[in-house]
């Protein structure tokens, strides 16, 4: 056994370091190291093993260390939502309260620990929670309740994957010893001992050994009793735990008391007191001091007083330690509470801030959504508007076309009239000619050549008229076709001055050739700054020719009344001029004729409207000119006129 323990001691250096127990810092650093491992451990059983290993130190003797570790475990468990760690936290805190004598609070926390442990479903941690709770009743010597809890802990330890959970057995042994059930105590103590063998050296082993020692002591087996007490002392020598050393010595002192070896008993009582003097566990001096007082009270007054003092000090220490520790724990608790409140406040403020931020974001989002919606609606309505616009444009062009067709339809009667008249003449004159030729034949048969010649002259005259009216009808049809046909002419860069000059001469000589009596003058004034512009030269030429022909016609018309001769005071004149005006080119064709009466001024651009006598014009010239200038070239054709003074037609063409 010794050998085995020694081997374990050498191998398990981690726990051997725990061996030099004594300083709180050492316990603390070991706990911190285990806690660090716990933080990264995911496996439930391994976590349970780590939690249990906190108690391989003599942690369970220091309320503040327990409280400190409990708080750390609680924070971690709650943050991770880890019920195993949280359960261990409550059990650890409860142990702290137990040591300070606050059993009510301790029980309350143990219940939390048990509930959470059961929630976790891990048998090792459930066993641990029940076991820790059992201490409360063990301390108060409520053996039945303590046994019940330790038995539950034992059952769970058997279900666990961890095969060496010793503490339920160890505690059952202690309770059975207290209750005087030595066999049961021995049974569990042996079981516990078997389980801790492989764990290396740690504090609890000393208690198990001394418990067995006490059992043998009471059973009357002094040899075995001393053997186990020695084992316990060996372990205490390694662990150097004042608490467990003191407990071992006390057990030995009781053994010698039982066998009436008072001197030995006194010796171990003193050892037990010495072990904890000037340590946080000095309250353990209470029991041995009490025993010593009993020994000395009738024999040695000095010693009695001495141990009364120790007893009192131990009692004071116990009370003051409890009071101080409780106070400190309460203070710590209060501080923790304050920190919690502060944290809660910070969290609340953060929540508010987050809330405000989220609110702000929501408002922004809402605004963004509204803007987005507005934008989309605008885009939609834009699309609709664009569609409507294009539909309107198409409708407009359709309207223009149908207007053209409608005006053609309305004009059918007019056209019929215009064509009907020359056709009537053609028909009538040809019929008359047929009759005349028949008559002529009769006259020739009679030998009356004079009459025959007269008739023949009539026939010739009629044929001239037929020819004339036929051509007239043909011209009307040609004009109609020109009007209805859309120009296929290509635009090209054209010198507008040259074009005007060409057509004014063409018109003048054409009129002179047609009518020998025609007498008018023309004057030109061209702006040399004008550069070539992009137009359909044939179309624009026709417009200019038409305007010039009209102007010559108007200028040469007799003035007012129609029956009087031309005004001798004025020479019929036509002025053709061009001018660059910013981004436009102006072409002006002016005459000094009679002007256009106000009432017909609006009608002059309508197709088939003419002021010329029937047969002299188709009435399509200005209408065509208007279309060519406006639709064909994006320009404008306007007229200024004053009755009796003259007329000025102006073409405005954009340069680009």
């Amino acid at each position, binding site marked *: 056994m010794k050998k085995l323990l020694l081997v374990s001691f050498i191998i398990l250096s981690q726990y051997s370091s725990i061996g030099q127990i004594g300083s709180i810092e050492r316990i603390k650093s070991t706990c911190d190291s285990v806690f660090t491992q716990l933080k990264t451990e995911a496996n439930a059983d391994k976590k349970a093993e780590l939690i249990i290993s906190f108690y391989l130190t003599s942690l369970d003797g220091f309320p503040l260390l327990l409280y400190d570790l409990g708080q750390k475990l609680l924070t971690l468990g709650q943050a991770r939502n880890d019920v195993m760690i949280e359960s261990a936290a409550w059990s650890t805190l409860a142990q702290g309260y137990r040591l300070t004598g606050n059993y009510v609070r301790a029980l309350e926390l143990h219940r939390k620990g048990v509930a959470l442990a059961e929630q976790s479903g891990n048998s090792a941690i459930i066993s641990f929670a029940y076991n820790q709770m059992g201490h409360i009743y063990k301390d108060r010597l409520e053996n039945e309740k303590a046994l019940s809890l330790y038995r539950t802990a034992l059952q769970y330890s058997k279900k666990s994957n961890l095969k060496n959970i010793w503490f339920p057995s160890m505690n059952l042994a202690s309770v059975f010893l207290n209750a005087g059930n030595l066999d049961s105590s021995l049974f569990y103590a042996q079981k516990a001992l078997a389980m801790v063998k492989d764990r290396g050296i740690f504090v609890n082993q000393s208690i198990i050994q001394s418990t067995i020692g006490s059992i043998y002591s009471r059973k009357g087996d002094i040899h075995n009793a001393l053997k186990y007490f020695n084992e316990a002392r060996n372990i205490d020598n390694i662990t150097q735990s004042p608490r467990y050393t003191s407990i071992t010595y006390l057990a030995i002192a009781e053994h010698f008391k039982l066998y009436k070896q008072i001197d030995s008993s006194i010796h171990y009582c003193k050892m037990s007191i010495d072990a904890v003097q000037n340590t946080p566990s000095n309250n353990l001096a209470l029991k041995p001091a009490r025993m010593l007082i009993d020994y000395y009270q009738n024999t040695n007054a000095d010693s009695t007083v001495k141990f009364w003092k120790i007893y009192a000090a131990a009692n004071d220490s116990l009370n003051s330690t409890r009071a101080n520790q409780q106070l400190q724990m309460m203070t710590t608790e209060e501080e923790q509470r304050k920190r919690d409140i502060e944290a809660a406040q910070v969290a609340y403020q953060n929540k508010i801030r987050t809330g405000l931020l989220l609110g702000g974001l929501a408002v922004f989002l809402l605004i963004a959504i509204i803007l987005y919606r507005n934008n989309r609606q605008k885009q939609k309505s834009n699309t609709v508007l664009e569609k409507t616009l294009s539909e309107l444009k198409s409708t407009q062009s359709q309207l223009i076309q149908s207007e053209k067709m409608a005006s053609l339809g309305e004009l059918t*009667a007019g056209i*019929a*009239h215009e064509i*009907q*008249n020359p*056709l*009537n*003449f053609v*028909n*009538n*004159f040809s*019929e*008359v000619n047929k009759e*005349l030729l028949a008559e002529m034949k009769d006259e020739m048969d009679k030998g009356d050549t004079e009459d025959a010649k007269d008739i023949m002259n*009539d026939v010739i*005259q*009629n044929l001239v*008229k037929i020819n004339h*009216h036929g051509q007239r009808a043909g011209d009307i049809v040609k004009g109609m076709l020109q009007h209805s046909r859309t120009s296929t002419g290509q635009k090209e860069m054209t010198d507008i001055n040259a074009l005007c000059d060409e057509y004014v001469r063409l018109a003048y000589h054409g009129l002179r050739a047609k009518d020998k009596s025609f007498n008018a003058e023309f004057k030109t004034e061209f702006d040399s700054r004008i550069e070539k512009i992009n137009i359909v030269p044939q179309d624009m030429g026709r417009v200019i020719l038409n305007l010039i022909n009209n102007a010559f016609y108007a200028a040469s018309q007799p003035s007012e009344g129609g029956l009087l001769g031309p005004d001798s005071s004025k020479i019929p004149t036509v002025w053709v001029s061009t001018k660059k005006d910013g981004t436009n080119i102006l072409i002006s064709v002016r005459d000094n004729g009679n002007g256009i009466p106000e009432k017909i001024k609006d009608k002059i651009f309508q197709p088939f409207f003419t*002021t010329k*006598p*029937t*047969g002299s014009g188709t009435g399509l010239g200005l209408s065509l000119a208007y279309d060519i200038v406006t639709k064909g070239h994006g320009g404008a054709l306007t007229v200024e006129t004053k009755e009796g003074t003259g007329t000025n037609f102006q073409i405005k063409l954009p340069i680009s």
Partner: protein
Amino acid sequence: MKILVVDDEKDVQTLFEQRFRKEIKSAEMDFAFAFSGEEALQFLTTHDHEAVLILSDINMPGMSGLELLRQIKEKHKTPPPVVMMITAYGDAENHEASMKLGADDFLTKPVDFPSLKEKLKAIH
């Protein structure tokens, strides 16, 4: 019988003179020509009661045939001359207007000369 023909087409004169050359030759009919409404009224004023029959086109520049008809019926009541209206537009509107203004007959172009000749002879 003096007949006044009113039409803005000057060739109408030649046509009538040739169509009715036999009647003119035999002095059965006598034609006068006016080339506008104004001219016709002038003629009627200067040759009062001479024309017993007036043939007038409706569509003429200046004074229209209908205006001429209205003035004739207004100014020359005794004896009222027979007025025949001629138009290329054989529409109901013109016909109705002519009848309302007291036209004696309404002819549509092209003029059927044989039937016109019959009508004129019947009046004669």
